[in-house]
């Protein structure tokens, strides 16, 4: 558990806002280099790693896709030495006031603080309720002339809270969405180092998921996998989140069923997890999964997709909370599933009419 926790802590410490993933990609390149046979970066920045299988060529391939981008802020203006910011991805304005941040400027990283302006400086409808992002400031503590010389419009602003270990496998940090899944994929690659697998394995760390699933769309086209599994995070039950839309932490990853999930691949995962006695949960989504799978399955001539989700609390806040055991379960599940893929597996996914009705 400690290894995974250390890995996740390291992954959450590196910035990688949507469209600006170079630092996290660099970190993953270093991590995946020894775990893969080939690595390349897509034209828009997604990282693709290939671990070759042992089947004769042309080999079927499975893509495991995890987005590596994170939500954050961007400098949009400077007023009296204070910064105005806009959002990158789905930022929750309720969590911003009082938040420590890092401004990534050309003069280096600068600490800052998101602040709620005093009520008398705000419009009437902002005085007591959640303040819209456009009225908040980021204060760097610097004098106005220092701010003007060091910071530019367009500079990225990331949440700077450090990971905290809450014990018993629970870790809180910003960007657990989706570094938890990146950690699961990395751990799966590690497990596969000592296992034989017939299929080619593509590991992908995609970009720009939080702004429109763009990395997955282009990765699907580029790699043309035989099938694809997307790992992302989902809503863990906890304060403010209860009921059918949520899943429990520490009860294993969830298999998500809905339009972006191929039903036969879904069933295959359920059979495998049950056989291996890896705990899992089920989650149904009626329209869009909101994950890379939505775009992956419609890339090129269409891709067979499946979604595995890790439940986390407080999604899209700087204090996202995950159970590391769920990450390890996901890694074991992915590695084990890949290991048992045989040359006939794709046949088993054919629609009923292709196989003449019953299988």
């Amino acid at each position, binding site marked *: 558990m400690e290894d995974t926790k250390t890995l996740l802590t390291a992954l959450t410490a590196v910035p990688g806002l949507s469209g600006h993933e170079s630092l996290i990609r660099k970190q993953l390149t270093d991590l995946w280099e020894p775990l893969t046979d080939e690595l390349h970066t897509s034209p828009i920045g997604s990282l693709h790693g290939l671990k070759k299988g042992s089947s004769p060529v042309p080999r079927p391939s499975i893509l495991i896709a995890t987005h590596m981008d994170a939500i954050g802020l961007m400098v949009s203006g400077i007023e009296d030495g204070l910064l105005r910011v806009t959002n990158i991805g789905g930022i*929750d304005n309720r969590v911003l006031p009082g938040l*420590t941040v890092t401004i990534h400027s050309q003069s280096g990283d600068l600490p800052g603080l998101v602040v709620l302006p005093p009520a*008398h*400086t705000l419009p009437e409808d902002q005085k007591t309720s959640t303040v819209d992002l456009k009225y908040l400031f980021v204060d760097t503590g610097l004098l106005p002339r220092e701010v003007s010389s060091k910071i530019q419009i367009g500079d990225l602003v990331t949440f700077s809270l450090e990971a905290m270990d809450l014990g018993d496998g629970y870790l809180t940090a910003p960007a657990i969405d989706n570094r938890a899944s990146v950690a699961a994929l990395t751990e799966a690659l590690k497990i596969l180092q000592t296992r034989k697998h017939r299929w080619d394995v593509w590991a992908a760390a995609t970009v720009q998921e939080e702004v429109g699933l763009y990395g997955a769309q282009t990765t699907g086209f580029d790699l043309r996998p035989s099938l694809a599994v997307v790992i992302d995070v989902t*809503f863990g039950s906890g304060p403010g989140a209860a009921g059918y839309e949520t899943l429990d932490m520490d009860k294993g990853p969830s298999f998500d069923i809905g339009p972006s999930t191929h039903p036969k691949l879904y069933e295959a995962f359920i059979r495998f997890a049950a056989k291996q006695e890896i705990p899992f949960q089920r989650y149904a989504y009626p329209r869009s999964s909101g994950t890379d799978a939505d775009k992956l399955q419609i890339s090129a001539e269409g891709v067979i997709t499946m979604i595995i989700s890790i439940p986390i609390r*407080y999604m899209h806040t700087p204090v996202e909370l995950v159970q590391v055991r769920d990450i390890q379960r996901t890694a074991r599940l992915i590695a084990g599933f890949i290991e048992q893929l045989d040359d006939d597996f794709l046949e088993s996914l054919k629609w009923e009419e292709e196989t003449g009705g019953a299988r």
Partner: protein
Amino acid sequence: MNSTQEKPKILAAQIKLLERLSNACAVSGDEGAVRKIVLEQIKYYADQINTDALGNVLAIKHGRGRNRPKVMLAAHMDEVGFILIHDEGGGLYRFNIAGGIDTRNLAGKQVLVGPEEAPGLIGTSPIHLTSASDKKNGVPLNNLRIDIGPGNTGKFKIGTRAAFATRFSRLGPSLRGKALDDRVGVASLIALLQHAPENIDLMAAFTVQEEVGLRGAKVAAHTFNPDMGIALDCTPSLDMPAWDGRENVLYRSKIGLGPAIYVGDGSTLSDPRLISLLRKTGDEENIPYQLRQPGLGGTDAGAIHLSRAGIPAVSVSVPGRYLHTPASLIRLKDWQNSVALIHAALTRITLELLKSPR
């Protein structure tokens, strides 16, 4: 000239001490962690040190010669924070607020719980599952929880305090910390006690429970029975630009303009003789200062001036932005000038000062 007669300076060592003080957790009524640092720092610099019934640290440094005025300086050790009020199980706690905190600052923050400073956090519903009206209204306190992790079920009892987790840091000309209100006053008072002028008896009160009603200062002033009192605090600077470009005329104080001398607030109208002493001192010594705009709020001076038969009192505060939030911000220069102004004023104090009527 012995070392105590030198002027106090705010340099690297003092900033380091402020870092320790700001990072320590001492929510009102539970000030032990700061008291420990204070006692360690003043041990060799006071003639008498006593911890009273409420937990105030009361230290006296006697001067020399006759007719020494007894001057009380007060800085509060406590900070705003949280108190656990209900254990919901699974490592989740309902909590209430000690002191005044705008609850809009709470969601998405890390906290430290209990004497062992166990990590915790305050989360909120995922934005994806939150209605537009709930997003706009914000999260009311009774929907917020402190989460210390499901593995820590039942670890803390009701009544345990929690504080913001923000670590102290230096931001160019500024200092940022969770409890600069009023650890900057505590650090100033330590420096002044270590360099007490000899013309006065310096009565240093490191007070408790200021944030919940100036309670420590009330009994400290009674015990000391000083001739006059000065509260060393950190005062809000509401000096940010207005959204529509209007001039912000209700700023209370502005960071960077020097110590803020209180004229009047919600707890007291400062003694005019002490105000003019401070202003004259600043003018003569070329130490910048500002007058804090009269208005609401209160400092330990409010409790001191009503003690016994009445004690002339004033507040001198370091201006600070974002007080009572997870991180406040002061300018180092303002702190240095505050200590310089108060020290210089102390050296000018004689009993004559209070002979003329208020």
